[in-house]
């Protein structure tokens, strides 16, 4: 039954993909109709009309997608609530290895995430894609690969043997590659797509090898067999390292993250939302499945590795994000940051697990999953919002926007919610998971190892720094995009999106961000099931999870009650509001902005993105490769008075010159050397085979 729901989710997403292929096929459909339907129904005729058809098809495809999302949510919830594990086999795959399917709490939880995201996207989609021209950007391609993409992600979660896992994984990668390359007429997209697929390939190979290590110590590729693989610590560590490499490449951890900010922004916005919000979570799922489920014994050193990687990614991600003027690139980088946070907490969980504190491990694990959930919510929200902005203003460069809060009130509202959640302000969901992360880190006292005892607090402080930087970053985003005065004609001309679906989708996500922030224990109880299944250990203080209170370890150690806080906030707010607004004769007077008496404030006088982040640029100068140029045009006698100033700022990741370019150069040089074999002279070729022959003869005798 539960499995049926899951299959429905997969099938519907697949169907939506196939349905998309029917675009531009209405002649064919008409033929079918005349063939089979004896009585022509008005409705079908109406649908198949020349100008209705594309719209109708779009609706159908996205409805199918939405159904798949809905079923995914249902399946996830039902498996989490019933707390069961269902397995199945499908007669595909290798002759001696049918596809093994397993649906447990962990998969269920991620089903939930995907389901919500896909549901929102399917609401949002029709309004967003209708402005693509069929000739340049055929809807068939977009719809087909969106469907396949979702199918792949869902299958990854269902997979129970290495083979089907890899197939689903690669399906996900390839489908999303086509989506990244969807608008392939500009070369940036092509380069991004290439880089993306390359990294996906390398990562996938690493994962295959990780499975291979396990498989070579066990019989068969099914996860059951792999679970019972008996390997030495060394081999286990090798497998873990490969897994971190493979899944981390997908998740976009520093320094192998560079493809991510290239690829995610160039896809259509609802796809970027799926990629950044959900696909990265699938990578997290893979890592969890591999290390917590398949590897029998966790080593605390692995935890340290994850902790360090995570810290670096979190800091690096947010620092890079801060410097981006392009909204979607910025969001992509902030995904790197959030993934980093998740890795940190997972690392903590591993450390506690190996040091014999499973209940704390459960806490960390829970924090990680909860943050994954929250990140899916608000990152989807933000990307969809960015899509709306782009649709209305045709502009993603923050420095060209501004003042949208008056033009697009609803969009600005939901976007504000997104920004507040992602910069982890209280009352919103981002804060709760961060709070849990801190609580986990603060339990360091129970450890004996001095190194860990000093390492973990430092990383906790790094987490604090990350949170603060994130707040700064998103102040910049919201402030420059929505507040102030429009910086370009585009943003002046902008107006609120018409399409109900887009508003509905974003509002839904925003509402969930808030509700989850107020009643986190609802979700946390679900995750508790997952920890129970995976680590055989739930929270130390399960009854600390009432709808009102959140006391994961012990009430006297730490407790947080969002509802009470909300009430308090309302009281305080209302009191002072009432007190100050009591007499109406002091209504507000509208005056013009204070311009120091000079007059003539122009929009160009406002702070821009690069201006806002200048202090950070100076303070953390080492974090980037900064190329900052100021050129003055001189004029007048002796060329002494400045006519115009040109300011150019170019910021680059360190990992380009340190990781990527060396590799590229290496391969090119190597192939150059190899090219010398092909001299073109036949006598040399004869010489090769002659020498080969002699060498071989000599070798064997």
């Amino acid at each position: 039954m539960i499995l049926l729901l899951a299959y429905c989710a997969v099938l519907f997403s697949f169907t939506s993909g196939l349905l998309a292929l029917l675009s531009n096929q209405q002649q064919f459909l008409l033929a079918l109709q005349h063939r089979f339907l004896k009585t022509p129904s008005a409705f079908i005729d109406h649908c198949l009309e020349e100008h209705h058809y594309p719209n109708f098809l779009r609706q159908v495809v996205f409805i199918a997608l939405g159904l798949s999302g809905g079923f995914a949510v249902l399946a996830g919830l039902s498996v989490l609530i019933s707390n069961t594990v269902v397995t199945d086999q499908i007669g595909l795959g290798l002759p001696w290895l049918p596809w093994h399917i397993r649906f447990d709490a962990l998969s269920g939880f991620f089903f939930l995430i995907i389901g919500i995201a896909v549901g929102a996207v399917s609401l949002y989609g029709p309004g967003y894609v209708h402005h693509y021209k069929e000739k340049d950007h055929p809807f068939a391609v977009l719809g087909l690969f969106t469907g396949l993409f979702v199918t792949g992600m869902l299958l990854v979660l269902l997979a129970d043997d290495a083979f089907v896992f890899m197939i689903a994984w690669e399906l996900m990668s390839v489908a999303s590659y086509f989506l990244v390359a969807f608008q392939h007429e500009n070369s940036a997209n092509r380069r991004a797509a290439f880089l993306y697929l390359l990294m996906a390939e390398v990562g996938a190979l690493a994962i295959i090898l990780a499975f291979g290590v396990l498989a070579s110590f066990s019989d068969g590729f099914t996860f059951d067999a792999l679970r019972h693989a008996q390997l030495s610590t060394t081999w286990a560590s090798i497998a873990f390292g490969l897994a971190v490499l493979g899944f981390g490449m997908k998740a976009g951890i520093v320094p192998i993250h560079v493809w991510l900010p290239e690829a995610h922004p160039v896809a259509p916005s609802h796809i970027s939302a799926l990629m950044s919000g959900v696909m990265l979570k699938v990578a997290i799922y893979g890592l969890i499945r591999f290390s917590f489920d398949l590897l029998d014994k966790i080593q605390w050193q692995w935890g340290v590795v994850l902790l360090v990687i995570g810290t670096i990614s979190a800091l690096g991600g947010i620092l890079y994000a801060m410097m981006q003027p392009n909204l979607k690139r910025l969001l992509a980088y902030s995904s790197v940051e959030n993934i980093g946070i998740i890795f940190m907490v997972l690392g903590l969980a591993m450390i506690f697990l190996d040091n014999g504190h499973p209940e704390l491990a459960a806490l960390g694990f829970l924090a990680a999953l909860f943050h994954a959930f929250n990140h899916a919510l608000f990152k989807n929200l933000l990307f969809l919002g960015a899509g709306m902005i782009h649709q209305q203003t045709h502009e993603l460069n923050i420095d060209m926007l501004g003042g949208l809060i008056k033009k697009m009130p609803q969009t600005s509202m939901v976007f504000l919610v997104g920004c507040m959640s992602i910069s982890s302000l209280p009352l919103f969901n981002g804060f709760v998971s961060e709070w849990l992360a801190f609580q986990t880190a603060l339990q360091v006292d129970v450890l004996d190892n001095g190194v860990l005892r000093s390492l973990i607090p430092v990383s906790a402080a790094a987490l604090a720094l990350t949170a603060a930087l994130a707040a700064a970053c998103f102040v910049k985003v919201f402030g420059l995009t929505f507040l102030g005065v429009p910086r370009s004609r585009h943003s002046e001309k902008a107006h609120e999106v018409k399409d109900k679906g887009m508003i509905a989708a974003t509002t839904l996500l925003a509402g969930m961000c808030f509700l989850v922030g107020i009643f986190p224990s609802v979700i946390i109880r679900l995750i508790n099931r997952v920890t129970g299944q995976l680590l055989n250990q739930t929270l130390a203080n399960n009854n600390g999870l009432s709808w009102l209170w959140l006391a994961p370890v012990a009430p006297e150690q730490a407790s947080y009650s969002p509802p009470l806080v909300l009430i308090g906030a309302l009281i305080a707010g209302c009191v002072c509001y009432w007190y100050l607004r009591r007499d109406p004769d002091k209504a507000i007077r509208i005056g013009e902005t204070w311009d120091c008496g000079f007059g003539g404030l122009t929009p160009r006088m406002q702070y821009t993105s690069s201006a806002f982040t200048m202090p950070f640029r100076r303070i953390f100068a080492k974090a980037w490769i900064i190329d900052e140029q100021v050129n003055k045009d001189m004029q007048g006698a002796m060329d002494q008075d400045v006519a115009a100033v040109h300011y150019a700022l170019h910021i680059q990741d360190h990992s380009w010159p340190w990781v990527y370019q060396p590799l590229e150069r290496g391969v090119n040089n190597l192939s150059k050397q190899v090219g010398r074999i092909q001299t073109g002279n036949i006598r040399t070729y004869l010489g090769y085979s002659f020498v080969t022959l002699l060498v071989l003869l000599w070798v064997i005798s």
Partner: protein
Amino acid sequence: MNWLIAILQTTLFVALAPLLAGWLKVCKCYLQNRQPPSLLQPYRDLLKLTNKQPVVSEQASWLFIKAPYIIFSATVLAATVVPLIAVDLPTSASADVIVMVGFFAFARFFLALAGLDVGTAFGGMGSSREMTISSLAEPAMLMAIFTLTMTASTTNLSLAISHVLEQGLVLRPSFVFALFALILVAVAETGRIPVDNPTTHLELTMIHEAMILEYSGRHLALIEWASQLKLMLYGVLCANIFFPWGIAQTFSLHDLGYGLLAIIGKLMVLSIILGIAETLVAKMRLFRVQEYLGFAYLLGLLGMLSHIILEASR
């Protein structure tokens, strides 16, 4: 009962905050041998501002008008968490110290947005600088506070404080470090010299002032009040965490009054120290701030490590 105490305490906080500001001014005037204004001057200012009609720029959006209320209530919420005269607050159970830091972040978030809202250069400058400083200050502060919470193995402030009380007078090197870190952070966060100058009116050196340049009337009053409250909050944190003696542990009137006197005494001493410091030290350049806060962070870290290695090592 203790809910009542909590509310009373909060109102005390809100009520006393301007007084502290006034007292600080008085101290500074004496130190700089000037004629001090009356202690109640801040109250008069606030009252005057509340009765004035606010002028709002035509560029401003709803966010600009709502922001002061949000900022003020966020700060008040922070105040509810911190034990002023008595420990064992129910409020500090519903929101622990991390949430308190969250409240500060909340207020700051909206303050910065408000600064950006009217679209002047000053607003942007102010909020950019404010976010910079605070994002550097936050980890240092958490470090300092974590030292306490790990000693008391709780993040619930009132429990932590009572834990310190129970232990009696123990000289902890970690606390020394943490105290200094917290003081440095407090100076930075409340925008005092040497980081920021609350009394400046030269726009280019402003940080906090630059953001609220556009505010007037009751909005300005709220924001001023919020910042005084913030100052007092930090003062109380320093005082009650590290010198908790005198704070009431039972809710008998005698104890409460005693606690009130104690905290007033502590705050007076603190503000005298602060005044002396502000008189002696000159305001530093904006881009020396990171060194200053880095030092604070270092102190916090040292505190943490000395706690882990010296005091709780096994």
